[in-house]
């Protein structure tokens, strides 16, 4: 079938084309522009579903740019062209990226209605999606750098969307400084690897890597740059500013892009696999530190979005704790290592859903009251649905049983316990503290005497997408095995067997 053969490149091409079509169509009619954007996003979503289904059933799919037959990767055992490579792991990640962007775009249709420069906003939104999908699907190092820069430029512009606010500009500047230094370090590392092996393809380099001193320098640079983009502990300082100052739906996308850089990090770890035990321990310890710092800083925040951003740092901590402790058992993770890695990957999905829901609720509260801080009170009287959604998000993010956060966090706890009981205990304590924090937020915003001013109504489409997120949180929480077996386990298998990934190219 031809559509599925060309799906990887279409996934990048459709949002990119739509991004630059948006301002032109927006000149004609704004309704038409919304329609065009939603069509592009829905077709991307459709293609990712098709591609994931195909990849999980039939194995790795490669796409060579410019080749006569898309599947033909290396005519002489030496890949020269840019190759996109999709296995169950990146299919899973791209599914998350496109679904979240679709949800956010529907949310924005009403949330952003009063803003004037919507054409550009949607262009940047679609460019951000292009960057995320490209970063996920590419199998080429230099391409990775290009998409990383597309991602950082468009997200910096989106952070500065409220141009009239000075803090938003500063947050964007800070984000841009950090991410461009990170991206240049990535480029330097790519240069180091290219200088030694004359290759740019990730799988081909992984096949011929020697583990020399320069390789280690290059890998350290790559790993630290992607940790920087993901915002784990030593380099988390841009995160609360950026998430707190961006429009709430944009924060959801920033969160998703952080998770995507985590995916790139795990991919680099597993295919190069130089000293995985040490790196696994480093990741696990960074994860614990992120959890600790995230929850303790969230405790003292007074701005809702900043608070959610700090709990986002803690959630990233859980993911790298899980995957890191799985990597300790690396060459053949079978027992607790497998559970740990799949728990970490499962948590990527749950994290997007939970924190996404909370950010969208923060956006709705901002839409209603125009306030970003916690001193509101009594919203539950007039907005009972919002309160219920918040309770669901709160339960999920702190890992309470009927919600999805519980399923993945339990997997992480029980497997990390085998590695070192102390790590698991700190993780559980972090979750409990998180619950305490969000209970405080809930009572500050929703309980108390009714909010005195006249409130607007929340548009139906915003409520609908929050409802979709809440329903999927409950659904995954009730039937975690369904999701685990259909998506997460193939993804984990793809991640821990880098041989397949490498051999698909050579």
């Amino acid at each position: 079938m031809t559509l599925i053969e060309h799906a990887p490149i279409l996934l990048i091409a459709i949002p990119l084309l739509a991004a630059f079509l948006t301002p032109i169509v927006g000149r004609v009619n704004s309704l038409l522009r919304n329609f065009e954007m939603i069509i592009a996003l829905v077709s991307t979503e459709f293609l990712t579903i098709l591609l994931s289904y195909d990849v999980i059933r039939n194995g790795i799919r490669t796409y060579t740019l410019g080749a006569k037959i898309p599947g033909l990767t290396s005519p002489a055992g030496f890949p020269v062209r840019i190759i996109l490579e999709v296995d169950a792991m990146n299919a899973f990640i791209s599914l998350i990226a496109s679904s979240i962007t679709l949800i956010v775009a529907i949310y924005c249709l009403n949330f952003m209605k009063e803003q004037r420069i919507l054409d550009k906003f949607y262009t940047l939104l679609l460019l951000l999606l292009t960057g995320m999908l490209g970063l996920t699907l590419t199998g080429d190092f230099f391409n990775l750098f290009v998409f990383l820069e597309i991602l950082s430029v468009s997200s910096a512009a989106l952070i500065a969307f409220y141009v009239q606010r000075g803090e938003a500009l500063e947050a964007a500047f800070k984000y841009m400084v950090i991410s461009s230094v990170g991206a240049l370090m990535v480029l330097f590392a790519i240069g180091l690897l290219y200088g030694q092996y004359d290759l740019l393809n990730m799988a081909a380099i992984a096949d011929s890597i020697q583990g020399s001193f320069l390789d280690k320098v290059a890998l350290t640079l790559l790993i630290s740059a992607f940790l920087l983009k993901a915002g784990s502990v030593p380099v988390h300082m841009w995160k609360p500013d950026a998430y707190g100052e961006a429009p709430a739906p944009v924060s959801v996308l920033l969160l998703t892009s952080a998770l995507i850089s985590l995916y790139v990090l795990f991919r680099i770890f597993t295919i190069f696999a130089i000293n995985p035990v040490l790196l696994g321990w480093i990741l696990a310890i960074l994860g614990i530190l992120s959890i600790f710092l995230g929850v303790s800083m969230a405790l003292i925040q007074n701005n809702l979005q900043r608070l959610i951003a700090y709990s986002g740092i803690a959630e990233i901590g859980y993911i790298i704790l899980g995957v890191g402790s799985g990597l300790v058992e690396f060459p053949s993770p079978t027992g607790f290592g497998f559970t740990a890695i799949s728990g970490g990957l499962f948590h990527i999905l749950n994290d997007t859903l939970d924190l996404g829901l909370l950010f969208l609720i923060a956006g709705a509260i901002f839409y209603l009251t125009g306030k970003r801080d916690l001193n509101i009170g009594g919203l539950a009287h007039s907005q009972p649905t919002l309160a219920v959604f918040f309770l669901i998000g709160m339960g999920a993010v702190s890992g309470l049983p009927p919600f999805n956060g519980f399923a993945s966090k339990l997997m992480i706890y029980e497997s990390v316990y085998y590695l070192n009981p102390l790590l698991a205990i700190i993780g559980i304590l972090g979750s409990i503290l998180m619950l305490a924090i969000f209970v405080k937020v809930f009572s500050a915003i929703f309980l108390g005497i009714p909010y005195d001013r006249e409130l607007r109504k929340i548009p139906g489409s915003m409520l609908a997408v929050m409802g979709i997120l809440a329903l999927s949180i409950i659904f995954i929480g009730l039937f975690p095995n369904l999701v685990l077996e259909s998506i997460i386990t193939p993804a984990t298998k793809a991640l821990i067997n880098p041989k397949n990934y490498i051999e698909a190219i050579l």
Partner: protein
Amino acid sequence: MFHNIPFIAVIVLIAIGLYGVLFKRNLIKIVMGINIIGSGVNLFLIELGYREGGVAPIFTSAPKLEMVLPTPQALTLTSIVINIAVVALMLSLATLIYKHYGSIDSEERRLKG
């Protein structure tokens, strides 16, 4: 020793750039630092593909077959373009920050840059 000079220059450029980004308080100087790191990395890429006495890698009516490696040059071109975009965006943010606060010192505001 002699042909190591470009690599030493790369290290020096990146170090100067990092110094600018980390220790300068003026936003424009931070942007300059990033641009200098970018130039250092670009020089590194070009140097990787350099071959002594090589000509430009265009096969049609080439005078000889000793050519410099074309891939790093393509990479460098792309990265120069990206760098320009990044620097332009950052300078425009700096302009807006100046309009908003009347200063481009990174220490004077709430968020520490």
